[in-house]
């Protein structure tokens, strides 16, 4: 494995880890559920995607053949993360989860209230 590939791998891994951490900090710090939903479902998915791309490059150069079974994880994660976020938001609206008072005027007209 030459110098260039190794630097690219290191860069991808650090970018992925930083984005995953940013998503979890959003989950820890933001004030209510509807804001917290944004952190993990967007940032963490991007971070895990970058780490999986790093893994594809690493195993492709190690085995001298294209290694494609990480693509499965990537594809599955990128399809299912928005579906899960949609279902969680729907459940939260259904059971009337608390909103921060400064966002209450943006209540949607389509909810079951």
């Amino acid at each position, binding site marked *: 494995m030459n110098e260039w590939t190794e630097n690219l*791998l290191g860069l991808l891994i650090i970018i992925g880890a930083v984005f995953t951490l940013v998503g979890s900090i959003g989950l*820890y710090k933001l004030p209510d559920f509807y804001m917290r939903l944004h952190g993990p479902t967007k940032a963490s998915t991007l971070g895990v995607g970058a780490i999986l791309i790093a893994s594809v490059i690493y195993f492709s150069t190690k085995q001298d053949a294209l290694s494609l079974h990480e693509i499965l994880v990537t594809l599955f994660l990128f399809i299912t993360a928005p579906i899960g976020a949609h279902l969680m938001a729907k*459940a939260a609206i259904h059971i009337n989860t608390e909103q921060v008072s400064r966002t209450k005027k943006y209540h949607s007209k389509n909810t079951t209230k």
Partner: protein
Amino acid sequence: MLELSLQIGFVLISIALILSFYRLIKGPSQPDRILALDTLYINSIAILVLTGIYLKSSVYFEAALLIAVMGFVGTVALSKYLLRGDIME
């Protein structure tokens, strides 16, 4: 370079795991706990893939794939339970 960035990645993702675990314990409402579980399994996929690169073994992807599938099913089932009060209808 690769060794150092792998170690930095392990540290950062471990902090992310601790933060989502905090939300899982504390979370004021039930959707918060579901979201924390979702984040927890995504972070564990990341740390499994990093372990696979670190130990130069490709066994860990099967585990990552299994966690991805089962975690999605779990999230959908828990959200359905909150929506309907029942999982299978």
